[in-house]
């Protein structure tokens, strides 16, 4: 873990800033917006979530823009395990994935048996993607073995479901730690590595995502296995989403520019994408009331 090359903070932030200056216009912008919509994990993770709320969200996932049938569906709906059955009903057969956070999300501070039971329940209820959190406490105290073993166990509990491992990069403190946690998760069997829960003050940032993209790129070069990346939290605008797509393309490459390998964990992002999409097709902005709030 400590044999991985270091990450220079100034350098990685400068690179992210440089990638942010790419000017994506006209046809490229239209392609980017549709791709970003297809990459959204439409998310609600509130204590106040109800079956009514998540059903509405699932309906939106299927048809994000009721006024425009050419608008593609999103990649997945992401909810708490208790909400999985309600969402499963709506999504069944649609091709839109059903992701559930598990393993004592968001803190991860629970015994392993509880985490595994949480995971199995969600899968049994119909989730085909599990977003787990790592034990940041164990990671920060240097007990990498503990973190690794937990991921291996959760991966096993997932069965056929895809496992996304949330590193909670806002709590890891350094880019070196982000790189180490990324490799640890990939070695342990993660199908995706994800930045954040969205429940701590610092969520996804472009430099953090850049470091994770370098990790999946180098991991595939070394092992032949491709792992996906999911930034989550704080990405709210089309402009931001395009910066991430540029970073994906110019860091990991074309192979990652698909919902199978890159996702946005977001909620309000979708409406901004829809608004920009409408602007590009019609030439003018529609007001926010022309897009559904769910």
């Amino acid at each position, binding site marked *: 873990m400590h044999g991985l*090359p*270091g*990450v*220079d903070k*100034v*350098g*990685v932030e*400068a*690179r992210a800033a440089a990638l942010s*200056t*790419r*000017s*994506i*216009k*006209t*046809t*490229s*912008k239209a*392609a*980017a917006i549709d*791709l970003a919509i297809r990459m959204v994990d439409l998310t609600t993770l509130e204590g106040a979530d109800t079956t009514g709320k998540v059903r509405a969200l699932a309906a939106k996932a299927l048809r994000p823009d009721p006024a425009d049938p050419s608008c593609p569906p999103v990649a997945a709906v992401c909810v708490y395990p208790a909400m999985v059955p309600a969402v499963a009903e709506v999504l069944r057969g649609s091709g839109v994935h059903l992701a559930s956070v598990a393993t004592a999300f968001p803190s991860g501070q629970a015994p392993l048996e509880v985490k595994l039971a949480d995971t199995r329940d969600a899968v049994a209820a119909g989730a085909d993607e599990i977003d787990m959190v790592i034990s940041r406490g164990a990671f920060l105290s240097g007990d990498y073995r503990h973190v690794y073993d937990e991921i291996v166990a959760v991966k096993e509990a997932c069965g056929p479901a895809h496992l996304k491992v949330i590193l909670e990069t806002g709590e890891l403190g350094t880019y070196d730690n982000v790189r180490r946690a990324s490799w640890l998760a990939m070695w342990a069997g993660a199908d995706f590595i994800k930045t954040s829960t969205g429940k701590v003050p610092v969520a996804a940032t472009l430099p953090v995502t850049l470091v994770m993209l*370098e990790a999946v790129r180098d991991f595939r070069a070394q092992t032949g296995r491709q792992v996906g990346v999911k930034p989550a939290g704080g990405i709210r605008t089309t402009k931001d989403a395009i910066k991430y*797509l*540029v970073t994906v*393309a*110019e860091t990991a490459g*074309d192979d990652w*520019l698909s919902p199978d390998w890159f996702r946005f964990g977001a909620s309000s992002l979708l409406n901004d994408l829809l608004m920009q999409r409408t602007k590009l097709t019609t030439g003018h902005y529609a007001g926010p009331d022309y897009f559904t709030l769910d």
Partner: protein
Amino acid sequence: MSFLDYAPAPESRSVVTIESSYGLFIDGEFGPGKATFKTINPADEQTLAEVALAGSEDVDRAVAAARRAFPAWSGLPGAERAKYLFRIARIIQERSRELAVLESLDNGKPIKESRDVDLPLVAAHFFYYAGWADKLEYAGFGPAPRPLGVAGQVIPWNFPLLMLAWKIAPALATGNTVVLKPAETTPLSALFFADVCRQAELPAGVVNIVTGAGDTGRYLVEHPDVNKVAFTGSTDVGRQIARAVAGTGKRLTLELGGKAANIVFDDAAIDQAVEGIVNGIFFNQGHVCCAGSRLLVQESIAEELLDSLKRRMATLRVGDPLDKNTDVGAINSAAQLARITELTEAGDAEGAERWSPPCELPGQGFWFAPTIFTGVTQAHRIAREEIFGPVLSVLTFRTPAEAIEKANNTPYGLSAGIWSEKGSRILAVADKLRAGVVWANTFNKFDPTSPFGGFKESGYGREGGRHGLEAYLV
């Protein structure tokens, strides 16, 4: 690259007005020279404008105008001179979009560089030296430092406006007057600057711009009424100037060529080092005197680093300088392209291995694909001579001592780079590198507060910072 076949995103050329012809700027007025020459856009070889060629009588008039302006200008309180410099800096900021487009058209550099690097630094230089104008007594050059008189300044084509700022800002702040000759392939931003001086109501004769080629430069440098010569350019021309100035009592600063070593140790942050290598050699098409043109990489990581570097180079976008997504623009002139071609052919002939990413070059204009040579040894010409293009020579080393030895084994000594996550190593190595600027975990970073200049054949004197004042004061 799917959606990353980024649709064209061109900056509008119409933001700047280019006249069909330009005169010499002498004594606050534009006037004809003895002949004219054309300046072209290196990206499409189309003529941009016709520019006056200054003969010896024109240079005489310019120096005389600067001499006439000198007593009043140097007699102004520093705070008053500062007002003009602050005004110039603000006008440059306000008109930076025009200037950026003009610079990219005349020079061939990508708009993202002229917009995000050149122009902000140009304004910063004027702001910085404006701040010194009323504090010269406290700069450490004696209690009452005095200006020298008329400064004759000759600048290169790689950073036309930035080099102008490096020369003119300290000269004016210290109370000197100026006759400046821009490079013959890139005169337009200097002529635009003349208009900025008029807009700032700078007194006539304080800044004079004479355009032309080598002869015009020689008239200026050899003019008996010039007190100070400042030159940035090739080592060959620098030598001629040093010879011409020797024994005349003129003060001289020279900023010449370089063949900088960019040293990557095995404990470097590899991804950021790759960015630094790319920035070091492909920034401004490698037309940078302090470019990191020799990559010294520790043998134990050479393969991994070169794989990363090649993958990164494959994402460089070469093409229209005015497209906001262009990373590498046009080579400035046919002559420079010929020089790059000649040296790279020597690299092939001497047995180094050439690699370029697949990239389509435009049919018109002067272009050279980003290139690296591996298997280069110290004996190869491409390891010793300045190529001044987007061409990197890669050498390996085994120990820090060997890296230092190889880095210093060059007639030049302008800059160097060190890449390591180990602070003690950076300090130890930096101490032993004979180069004017040593960058650690970064490259090609400039700031007006930081002195810049070379060892050995890279020239003498310092520009920038407090040190930059010294060249213009007695």
